[in-house]
């Protein structure tokens, strides 16, 4: 992607990495942040945008998305996913490796990175699989994949059930400084489950996944990370006990980072009542006590990052009986509006903390450039309009898929401009 | 403008006089009461059938076997009026209807559709030797080629009024009224 230069004038700049929340001009020259200041002037040829009344943040980063390419391009491609990310205010996304074929070799990592660069929208960072073919048996070539651009190693969607393999992965990854990201789920306890196990699943006659299936695995991962001193990144935490276990592990000094997803922050298993497949996901939507605990974990920093787990599915696949429909919802184009309206808007997080959870911390947890507007940082910027009222219209998504339980929600606040490397990749 | 939406055509005494005459006609037509069966159509036709049975018993010394037909499941207008949750039971006399002269008793003969349903149901129950139709009130408006054999009273209905037969079991009195549309029974 060619580097650009631009000047964003008069916005409220919120950059938690520098504890900054003030009206500033942001100058980007040749793709990197050149200056923050007042009354800055633009170099010749640079685009000047008046963003007064708007909020300017370091580019938002989603560390958990499924772009489906290669193999399931009917759901999403790297290009459509990168455009959806840009439209949602994200300047970078981290693509999960559970594609077909699985991203478990340096060539495939390089392919994802190259396709991402070609898209010319949000930056796309590849990840590589922990195990060859996500089979949970033998380590994939982690070092080579990292050299090819993988920013994390994960078997997402396929929990690593073999604790010995998890030990090896965490130990081996230490030498490369990347996190091992795990989808915490004990497959024995969750076997056959299609939703949260509880009164709702009992009433609906649908097999459930108990909280314990996630809790057991979170605790296992924390203990293995503790003794290996590796970096474990726990994905989409959804249970009350899981949040508490992470909180305690952090207090003990375990190197753990963890995600909260917008849907686990805002919805409970009541959303699947009536066999609504658009609310079917894994981990499942749980009870109100769990939802509140995830929110509290996000508030107090136990959960470091907000990540969408953007999981596109073709409408035919969701248009099935509940048991037969796949898990997952798209999230890139709703996350900012949902979080601004229902997390910041309800006073759970202030705006700088939201930016920290969606930009600064994701960059830090995954060792990515960005997450800051310090001099010399990538010229990645998200411009938010906090007052824009809008209605979620899945038909208007840039994503190739529309599977969301949030269709029709009335939201306040959205990204109105997304800048990557000094170039505008989305404006709306 | 009529003074009352409900105009009496026959009072209790008039109905009883008519029933007594109809009972005689039934016996005459059958040449006695051997092989005679009365089948009243629910609801009201069955009440009238019981009154006719009593009249015949008074005159002949013994009652003819009497039953009741519920034609709900034989109606042809389910799609228009919707299902009727209360379905009555059809009751046949102990010896059935095969080879008998069956007198179908109803309150009002109007479109003829009720009688059509009753005939169909009757044929499912057996093979009567002969079927007669006996109604307390007959008016015009037939939609099927059906006519009564024994009639209590012919009523000329000028507009879109309805002829209503009232029986003690359902309506607390015996009579026939002409009713303005919109007036509920």
């Amino acid at each position, binding site marked *: 992607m060619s580097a650009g230069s631009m000047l964003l004038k008069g916005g409220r700049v919120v950059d938690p990495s520098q504890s900054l929340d003030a009206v500033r001009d942001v100058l980007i020259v040749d793709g990197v942040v050149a200056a923050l200041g007042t009354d800055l002037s633009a170099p010749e040829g640079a685009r000047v945008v008046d963003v007064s009344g708007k909020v300017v943040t370091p580019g938002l980063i989603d560390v958990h998305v499924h772009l489906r390419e290669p193999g399931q391009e009917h759901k999403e491609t790297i290009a459509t996913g990168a455009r959806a990310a840009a439209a949602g205010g994200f300047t970078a996304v981290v693509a999960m490796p559970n594609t077909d074929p699985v991203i478990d070799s340096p060539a495939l990592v390089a392919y994802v990175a190259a396709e991402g660069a070609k898209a010319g929208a949000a930056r796309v960072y590849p990840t590589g699989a922990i195990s060859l073919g996500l089979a949970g048996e033998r380590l994939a070539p982690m070092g080579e994949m990292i050299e090819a651009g993988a920013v994390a190693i994960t078997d997402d969607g396929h929990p690593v059930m073999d604790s010995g393999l998890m030990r090896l992965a965490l130990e081996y990854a230490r030498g490369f400084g990347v996190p091992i990201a795990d989808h915490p789920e004990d497959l024995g306890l969750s076997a056959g489950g299609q939703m949260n196990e509880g009164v709702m699943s009992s009433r*609906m006659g*649908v097999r459930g996944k108990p909280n314990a299936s996630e809790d057991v695995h979170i605790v296992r991962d924390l203990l293995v990370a503790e003794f290996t001193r590796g970096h474990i990144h726990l994905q989409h935490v959804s249970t009350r006990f899981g949040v508490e276990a992470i909180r305690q592990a952090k207090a003990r000094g375990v190197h753990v980072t963890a995600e909260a997803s917008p849907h686990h922050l805002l919805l409970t298993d009541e959303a699947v009542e009536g066999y609504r497949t658009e609310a079917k996901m894994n981990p499942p939507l749980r009870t109100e006590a769990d939802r509140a605990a995830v929110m509290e974990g996000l508030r107090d920093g136990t959960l470091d990052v907000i990540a969408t787990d953007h999981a596109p599915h073709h409408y035919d696949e969701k248009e099935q009986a509940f048991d037969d429909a796949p898990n997952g919802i798209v999230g890139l184009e709703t996350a900012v509006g949902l979080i601004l309206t229902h997390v910041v808007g309800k006073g759970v997080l202030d705006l700088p903390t939201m930016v920290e959870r969606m930009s600064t911390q994701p960059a830090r947890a995954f060792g990515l450039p960005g997450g800051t507007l310090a001099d010399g940082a990538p010229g990645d910027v998200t411009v938010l309009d906090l007052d824009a009222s809008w209605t979620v219209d899945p038909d208007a998504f840039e994503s190739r898929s529309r599977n969301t339980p949030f269709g029709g929600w009335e939201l306040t606040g959205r990204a109105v401009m997304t800048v990557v490397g000094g170039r505008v990749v989305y404006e709306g | 403008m009529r003074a009352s939406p409900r105009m009496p055509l026959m009072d209790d005494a008039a109905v009883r006089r008519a029933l007594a005459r109809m009972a005689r006609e039934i016996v005459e037509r059958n040449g006695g009461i051997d092989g005679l069966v009365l089948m009243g159509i629910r609801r009201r036709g069955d009440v009238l059938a019981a009154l006719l049975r009593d009249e015949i018993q008074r005159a002949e010394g013994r009652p003819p076997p009497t039953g009741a037909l519920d034609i709900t499941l034989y109606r042809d207008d389910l799609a228009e009026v919707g299902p009727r949750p209360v379905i009555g039971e059809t009751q046949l006399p102990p010896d059935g209807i095969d080879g008998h002269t069956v007198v179908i008793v109803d309150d009002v003969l109007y479109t003829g559709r009720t009688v059509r349903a009753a005939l169909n149901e009757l044929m499912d129950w057996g093979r009567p030797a002969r079927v007669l139709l006996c109604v307390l009130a007959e008016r015009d408006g037939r939609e099927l080629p059906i006519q009564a054999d024994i009639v209590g009273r012919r009523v000329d209905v000028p507009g879109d009024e309805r002829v209503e037969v009232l029986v003690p079991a359902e309506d607390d009195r015996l009579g026939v009224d002409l009713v303005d549309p919109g007036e509920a029974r």
Partner: protein
Amino acid sequence: MSRAVSSPLGKDLVGLEGLSADQIRTILDTAEPFKEISQRRVKKVPVLRGKTIVNLFFEPSTRTRVSFEFAEKRLSADTVNISSSGSSVVKGETLVDTARNLEAMQIDMVVMRHGSSGAARFLAERIPSNVINAGDGRHEHPTQGLLDLLTIRDHRGPIEGLKVCIVGDVLHSRVARSNIFGLLALGAEVAVCGPRTLLPVGIEEMGVGVFARVEEAMEWADVLNVLRLQLERMQGGFVPSLREYNRIYGVSRARLDATGRDLLVLHPGPMNRGVEIDSDVADGPHSVILNQVTNGVAVRMAVLYLLAGGAPDKAEAAKQGGEA
């Protein structure tokens, strides 16, 4: 074109959950006269003449399908059976495509059994035809629930205040769920009894009591509804052995006699004699299992009849993809 009329049940019968006590009583009361039709010489009335009904069975079933078929034929409907073997079901056609095909063929009613919970509702929301759930996954089997209610009412009078215990594999049972929702709606007290591995999580929060021992359940209950123990549950490890299941949870004559009480025993069939129920109970004086079978036809006739009034207004809404 007929004008819009609405059935007392709405367009479909997907489950007993959400039906009012009045609606359930209407079905049971309507079933009464239908019992008599099956005794007639000509066991047929013309009320559904000209209606087309498809029996769409994605799972094998003999008794439910036969019972529906008798009910349909006794009401003079034209019926077509589609079962999973030999139909496009096995060729990978999706449920939504099946639904569209039925719609294109102008079917009046669909009776469906499907392995996935929620499948009946899924179909009902997508086609204008009346949909009757003949069992969806582990969710509901409403006509079985209704015939159980009718049988209990026949033998014990009003359901209100009766104590009914469902014994066995409640977890996997759509019969259990329909019984629970129907019985609670009519004001019965409901409990379940069985190994904890076969009871759903949070069952108490549905207003249902739990007995650990079948002897205690028998002391408490007026009616036992004994569920079939699918043999694959043992392979699934939910119970260690059939012998142990019978010894601990089996409904035996000795246990019934020990209570000194006159319990009514139901079983939705097919029975595993010597597992969940002993033969001397199944064939004994407590059992009303064959009455259930007879009532099954009457209840299904009542449901078909009540839904058949049609509700074109709602059907239209379903066609548009809205709530029906």
